[in-house]
C-alpha cells in the first residue's frame, strides 16, 4: 500500500458532523456507516438513501476519434450509445484481465464521461493515456492520438448516489416539479441553485435511483439540500457498509474482490457487457482464446442452507469433500437475514442448484449455488 495520506472528499466534514464512522477505503477517508449498516440498507430498500460517491473517478475523453478510441479500449460497444446515454463496460489488460469496471456515458457527439472505481482512477487514466499516445501495444493506429483529449477531472468534481423507491419524489423536490427524471441509463444536465449538475439514472443497489455529478465546490450545498428536501421521504445518509450489502444482494461485482486483473468478464459471468463482434479491442484475443479453451472457473452466487455465520472472502468452497473454489464476497444479507455470497468455483461444479459447502473456521456449512440476483422484491 502507498504511504500517501488518505484523501478526503468534499463531503468529509459533513460525514463527521453527522457522526459517521470513518474508514480508509481505496485511499480515501469514507463513511462506513452513520448509525447502522442494516438500518441504512433498509432505508435504501424501503425509502431513499444518499451516498457520497465523490471518491469515484471521473474521466473525460473528448475530441474527434474519441468513440473510435474508447471502442478499442472498452469491452462494450460505444456505438450503441446515443448522446445522453450510458453503459456498463470493462477496461481490460492484454490478457483479458479486468483493470476496472465502469460506466461510460456519451455526453456529446465525441465527448464521454467515464465513472470509474476510486482505487482504479489513476491506473485507468494512465492506461488510457498510454494507449492514446503510444499505440505501442500493437493496437491499430487511429486518429485519436492527435485530436483526442483525455482529462482526469476527479479532483474538481464530486458525486452522490441517491437510491431507493422514493427517488422520484426526491428528484422533483430537489430539481423542480416540471423537469423529467432521466430514463434508465440516461444522463442529463439540470440546474440546481444556480449551478449545473449531471443526473444519471443508474446505481449500484438494485433499487431505482440516480447518480449526480457536480463541481466539488457545490458538493456540500447539494448534499445538505438532498437531506433536507428528502426528510418527508425518509431520506438518510448511507455509508459504504450498506453500499456493499446492497450490491451483494444483487450480485453486482466489486472490483478488487470479485474482479481482478487475473479474472476476465466471461469468468465473472458478465459476458453480456463484452461485444466480441467488435473487430478489435484490448483483451479481445485473450477472451476469444478463453472461450475456445473453455473456462477454468466461474463466478457463482450462493445462499447458505442454514442460519449460521456469515460467509466471507477467502473462505474455501467444497463439493463432496473436494476443494472447488474460494469465496470472494459474503455477508449476512440484511434483506433476507440470511448468509449469501459469491465465489469462484471450477466450471465443472458451477451449476445452478448444486450443493456446496463453505468452510468457516474449520467447519463446513452447506450452501446452494443460485441464480442471480440473490434478492428480488
Amino acid at each position, binding site marked *: 500500500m502507498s504511504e500517501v495520506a488518505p484523501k478526503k472528499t468534499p463531503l468529509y466534514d459533513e460525514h463527521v458532523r453527522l457522526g459517521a*464512522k470513518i474508514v480508509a477505503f481505496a485511499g480515501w477517508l469514507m463513511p*462506513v*456507516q452513520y448509525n*447502522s*449498516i*442494516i438500518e441504512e440498507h433498509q432505508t435504501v430498500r424501503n425509502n431513499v438513501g444518499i451516498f457520497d460517491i465523490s471518491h469515484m473517478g471521473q474521466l473525460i475523453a473528448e475530441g474527434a476519434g474519441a468513440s473510435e478510441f474508447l471502442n478499442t479500449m472498452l469491452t462494450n460497444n460505444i456505438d450503441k450509445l446515443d448522446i445522453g446515454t450510458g453503459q456498463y463496460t470493462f477496461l481490460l489488460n492484454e490478457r483479458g484481465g479486468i483493470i476496472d469496471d465502469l460506466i461510460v456515458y456519451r455526453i456529446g457527439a465525441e465527448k464521454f464521461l467515464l465513472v470509474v472505481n476510486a482505487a482504479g482512477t489513476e491506473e485507468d487514466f494512465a492506461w488510457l493515456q498510454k494507449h492514446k499516445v503510444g499505440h505501442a501495444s500493437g493496437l491499430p493506429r487511429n486518429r485519436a492520438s492527435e485530436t483526442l483529449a483525455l482529462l482526469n477531472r476527479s479532483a474538481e468534481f464530486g458525486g452522490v448516489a441517491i437510491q431507493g423507491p422514493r427517488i422520484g419524489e426526491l428528484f422533483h423536490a430537489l430539481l423542480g416539479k416540471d423537469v423529467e427524471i432521466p430514463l434508465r441509463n440516461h444522463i442529463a444536465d439540470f440546474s440546481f441553485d444556480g449551478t449545473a449538475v449531471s443526473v444519471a439514472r443508474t446505481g449500484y443497489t438494485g433499487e431505482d435511483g440516480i447518480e449526480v455529478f457536480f463541481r466539488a465546490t457545490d458538493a456540500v450545498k447539494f448534499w445538505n439540500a438532498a437531506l433536507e428536501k428528502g426528510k418527508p421521504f425518509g431520506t438518510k445518509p448511507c455509508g459504504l*457498509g450498506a453500499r456493499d*450489502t446492497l450490491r451483494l444482494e444483487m450480485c453486482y461485482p466489486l472490483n478488487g474482490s470479485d474482479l481482478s486483473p487475473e479474472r476476465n468478464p466471461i469468468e465473472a459471468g458478465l459476458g453480456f457487457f463484452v461485444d466480441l463482434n467488435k473487430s478489435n479491442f484490448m483483451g479481445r484475443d485473450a477472451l476469444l482464446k478463453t472461450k475456445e479453451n473453455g473456462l477454468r472457473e466461474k463466478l457463482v452466487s450462493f445462499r447458505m442452507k442454514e442460519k*449460521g*455465520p*456469515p460467509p*466471507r472472502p477467502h473462505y474455501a468452497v467444497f463439493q463432496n469433500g473436494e476443494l472447488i473454489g474460494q469465496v470472494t464476497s459474503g*455477508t*449476512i444479507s*440484511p434483506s433476507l437475514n440470511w448468509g449469501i455470497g459469491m465465489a469462484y468455483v471450477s466450471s465443472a461444479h458451477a451449476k445452478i442448484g448444486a450443493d456446496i459447502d463453505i468452510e468457516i*473456521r474449520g467447519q463446513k456449512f452447506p450452501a446452494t449455488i443460485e441464480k442471480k440476483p440473490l434478492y428480488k422484491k
Partner: protein
Amino acid sequence: MTNVPDDLLYTETHEWIKHEGENIRVGITDHAQSELTDVVYVELPKMDRQANAKEAIAVVESVKAATDIYAPVKGIVVEVNKALEADPGLINREPYGQGWIFVLKIDNADDLKQLKDAEAYRKQIVV
C-alpha cells in the same frame, strides 16, 4: 460518548466482566460494539468447556468482520446466552444487559485483580 459502567471490570480486548459470586458474566463493551458495527452472528462457547485466560472461546461477527472473544481469566463455561442466536443485535442494543455472551465459573477470584477497572479502560479507548 460510549458508556463504561463503573461497577464492571474490563480487558484490553474489550470484554466487560461482572463479578457474581464464584462466577463472572462476560460481554463486549459499548465501545467494542460500536466499532464492530451491526452484529449479525454470535458463535457461543460450548457449555462446560475449560477455558484458559486469554483463550478465544467465542466469535462475534458483524456485517464487516469476525472478532474473537476471549476468556478474561481461567474458568469453566457454565452459561451461554442462547438469546443471541435468534437476536445477535442485542449486543448492539444492550451491550451490558441482554447482550451478555457467557458466564464462567472461575478458578481463582484473585485472577480478577489483573483486569482493568473502568478508569483504566476509559484511558485505553480515549487515545
